[in-house]
């Protein structure tokens, strides 16, 4: 759970408020990252989740606990934040610092933080799925009640690992949810130019598994889909494929000019930008007023600045790290 989650004693917040809080945190972090990349304060391969914040926040608030496992990708900072990773360690890792969750050795594409359930972040498209099957196999054998959530993109649905993983997870009725964050592009390839299924969720039928396509930017619709999948998994009824349709505003990588993107589609997506849309919904529904929202956002901003300062001020890892963590025992010099 994100750090901004109120403590157990606080009065229960409305789910949409909790989702907004998390989405706003992701949004702020992403904004600052891009700012620092632009200014040169930071140099890192960075894949912005801009547009997918509400999706990740909704997933995190659908009943997933910090004991549950998450596997995500290079475009994973939204998932990691939503899963509750401490911001300091996360941002320090992106800075390549010794205080990062992986001592700076993994970097943004390989963030790991088992305490919050962030088990594996992979840079190889689709490879998180077999690993998720393994995490879920462990839970199935140990009967530890954990659910594994694996996030991947629309492009990843065309790689062999997807097929093998869904078949095996269904065969073994594993507690795993396959969450396809369909942002309509795989690098520069538009959905229909790489994927022959009308909906990725259609592929679930070939594995005797429920598959559902949902608007991932609509927190209420997505919450239902995720909760149902989670319930199925916890009840031992096996995996679900949830295709959450969203949009990727910043191109594939930081600096991607995105010339290949359909302009009209982009404009329409931007008009429906899920973060301001959810903010407006909260006000409309009377779940929060402007003052409360501003206060929340200010608190978040402070928290983010704190983490950035922590990361900036931290030292880089030393040369001995090249001989550490190769094996459990240190390799002799």
């Amino acid at each position: 759970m994100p750090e901004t989650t109120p403590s157990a004693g606080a009065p229960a917040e409305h789910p949409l408020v909790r989702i907004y809080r998390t989405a706003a945190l992701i949004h702020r972090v992403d904004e600052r990252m891009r700012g620092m990349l632009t200014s040169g304060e930071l140099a890192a391969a960075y894949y912005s989740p801009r547009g997918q914040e509400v999706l990740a926040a909704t997933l995190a608030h659908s009943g997933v606990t910090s004991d549950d496992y998450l596997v995500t990708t290079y475009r994973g900072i939204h998932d990691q934040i939503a899963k509750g990773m401490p911001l300091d360690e996360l941002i320090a890792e992106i800075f390549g610092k010794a205080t990062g969750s992986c001592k700076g050795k993994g970097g943004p594409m390989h963030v790991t933080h088992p305490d919050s359930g962030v088990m594996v972040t992979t840079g190889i498209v689709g490879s998180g799925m077999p690993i998720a099957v393994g995490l879920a196999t462990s839970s199935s054998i140990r009967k530890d009640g954990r659910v594994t959530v694996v996030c991947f993109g629309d492009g990843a649905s065309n790689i062999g690992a997807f097929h093998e993983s869904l078949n095996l997870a269904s065969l073994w009725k594993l507690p795993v949810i396959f969450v396809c964050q369909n942002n309509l592009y795989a690098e520069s390839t538009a959905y229909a130019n790489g994927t022959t299924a009308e909906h990725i969720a259609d592929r679930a039928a070939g594995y005797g598994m429920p598959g559902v396509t949902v608007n991932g930017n609509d927190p209420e619709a997505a919450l239902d889909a995720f909760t149902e999948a989670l319930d199925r998994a916890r009840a031992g009824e096996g995996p679900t494929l949830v295709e959450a349709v969203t949009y990727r505003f910043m191109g594939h990588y930081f600096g991607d000019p995105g010339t290949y993107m359909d302009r009209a589609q982009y404009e329409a997506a931007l008009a429906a930008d899920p973060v301001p849309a959810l903010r407006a919904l909260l006000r409309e529904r009377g779940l929060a007023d402007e003052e409360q929202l501003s206060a929340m956002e200010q608190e978040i901003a402070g928290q983010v600045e704190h983490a950035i300062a922590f990361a900036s001020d931290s030292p880089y890892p030393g040369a001995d790290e090249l001989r550490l963590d190769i094996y459990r025992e240190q390799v002799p010099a």
Partner: protein
Amino acid sequence: MTDRTVRKERARKITFQQACTIALDEAMAADDTVFLLGEDVADREGGGTFKVTSGLSTKYGTDRVRSTPISEQAIVGTAVGAAVAGMRPVAEIMLMNFITLGLDQLVNHAAKLRFMSGGRTGVPLTVRTATGAGGGTGGQHSDMLEAWLAHVPGLKVVVPSSPAEAKGLLLSSVLDDDPCVVVEHTQLYWTKGEAPEPGLRIPLGKANIARQGSDVSVITYGRPVGQVLELAEKLAGEGIDVEVVDLRTISPLDERTVLESVAKTRRAVIVHEAVGQFGVGAEVSARISEELHGQLAAPVVRVTSANAPVPFSKPLEDKYLYQISDVESAIRKSMA
């Protein structure tokens, strides 16, 4: 147990295949995080193509001995995920050529996750795989690919040479905290050797002086070890005293044992079944010559299989394989 039954136990002969089964059985009994997965490994499916897992699903249940579909990437990936969660999965990849399909998981993930997570996770999995020429299975079922894996920091690569070695090394691999690949030679499965004592574990990363000798060191591993030991006995009759070093673990390589042996004998012959070009022997040869420059009485010689795919036709397959007669010539030339 009385002393008499102990002695009987010791004298008992078992096959290499049985030795592997015993190792898995002991590991599963000792540690309930150990579980097996792979194609046809459960008893309903016959207990594995080479029957190494035979009986284990009946004994430990199909939760812990899991037959899989034909999905090598998912098999290795599942092992990676379960290992990250703290289990000790043992994945069977039926034949080593199929490991090509699981190499992303093995190399990009299993080998690196400890490092890339800054030690926050580890991957205590074992991949068992069978291979080797001599059975007439041709180009896609016979390759020895251990050199690839040895080139990957983070993996441990083990190639046992006899039943007792297989037992001790496999057990150590399963209980090791890092990803291990154990390569079992199909042509050894039905060979017999002395049964090791229950519980025997052979440490990883340590080579074995299989025979002490003073004239020339033959450094080898896996199937050729037995053949070289026989040759050594024959040559002993002629007064040539061969030291036989069984590497056991290819990576991490026990450089010290190799160098001490060759520093003593001043002559080295390296033997392996894999093709020579860019093979394991290259690293061993290079380290010997680099470290013992000026101390060698003769150039290091490598005896390997031909630089070709494994041919199907039996007479050609025989010619493809490393020749023990070539080892003999190399030893004699070294001594000349």
